[in-house]
């Protein structure tokens, strides 16, 4: 059971900053679920987290219209 951070209603680039902060206490290899709004957030945050060396494992649209991102923290484990 991975941790979840709800970033619905949080705009760019603050949502990316908050996702990074949520990943910080995790050790490499641990997973985080991030809830993101459709539109700019889902186009920016997953790719930006990948560019920071994390692995995007899954990204899918939920029934309510937002996106659920599962990301694994990168770096030496």
């Amino acid at each position, binding site marked *: 059971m991975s941790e979840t951070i709800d970033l619905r209603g949080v705009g760019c680039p603050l949502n990316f900053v908050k996702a990074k902060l949520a990943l910080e206490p995790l050790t490499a290899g641990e997973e985080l679920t991030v809830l993101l709004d*459709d*539109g700019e957030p*889902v*186009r*920016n945050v*997953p*790719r930006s*987290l*990948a560019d920071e060396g994390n692995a*995007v*494992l*899954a*990204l*899918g*649209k939920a029934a309510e219209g937002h*996106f659920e*991102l599962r990301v694994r923290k990168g770096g030496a484990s």
Partner: protein
Amino acid sequence: MAVDEATLKGGGFIKLREPEIFAVRIKIPVGDATAEQLRAISRIADDFGDGTVHLTVRQCLEVRGVRAESFDAVHAALAAAGLGTGACGPRVRVPVSCPGSTFCKRGLNDTRALAAALDASLYGRGDLLPHKFKIGVTGCSASCAKPQENDVGFQGAVRPVFDELEGACIACGVCADACPTGAITLDAEGRPHIDLALCDHDGRCVQACPTRAIRAEAAGWRVFLGGCFGKNPRLGVLAETFIDDHEALRIADSAVDAYRRLGVKGERLRDTMDRVGHDHFIEEVLG
């Protein structure tokens, strides 16, 4: 005062309605001036002009109400501030550029670097052309610097490819969502198909794909030739795609040369191209 009218015009002095009164066009490459340069222009407007500074549509500034006898003094004051006058008449004008990748999140290319290089290599070579010659450099298909309206226009562009060489697709569909032209459709498994005929090469799918399953197969500048507004406006013809800065400079230089050789006095590049044939002219330019 021994400055003739041709020298005045070549030196950025534009005749206004009132006799003996000019506007001095000041070149602001890529539209960026330091605060100190703006202070120097303010002083020139106070000392030699009517105290106003006009913003032109092509990212230059003009000081109005200047007399011809101030020609040397104004040029000296501009040079002291690291500035110069902008071209008027049948010459290569100051290139216009958008903020590009330096400042704009949509910008794909460094427009300011290319515009500055074009300015350095083409501006004010002193040779007269058949008519004015304008250059526009823009960072993406949004075309904020309107490259298609210029005699030569450059537009930052990427050609996306879905090949999963750099990462596997997770079927999130964000690429299709990010594409503004509907060029990406998803199959039953949620994997993208890119229709390049619909693609406007803005690179948003490449920027959005979280696994790099869509990447840039080619990137660089698209080149438009013979665009022209004013009377009888027409957009430029796409002549080349995905070239680098070096090739962009060569093509711009070659286009100016071909225009000088093939153009007839008074016609814009668009008219020259219509007369000699678009394919023939593009062949002359690309070599």
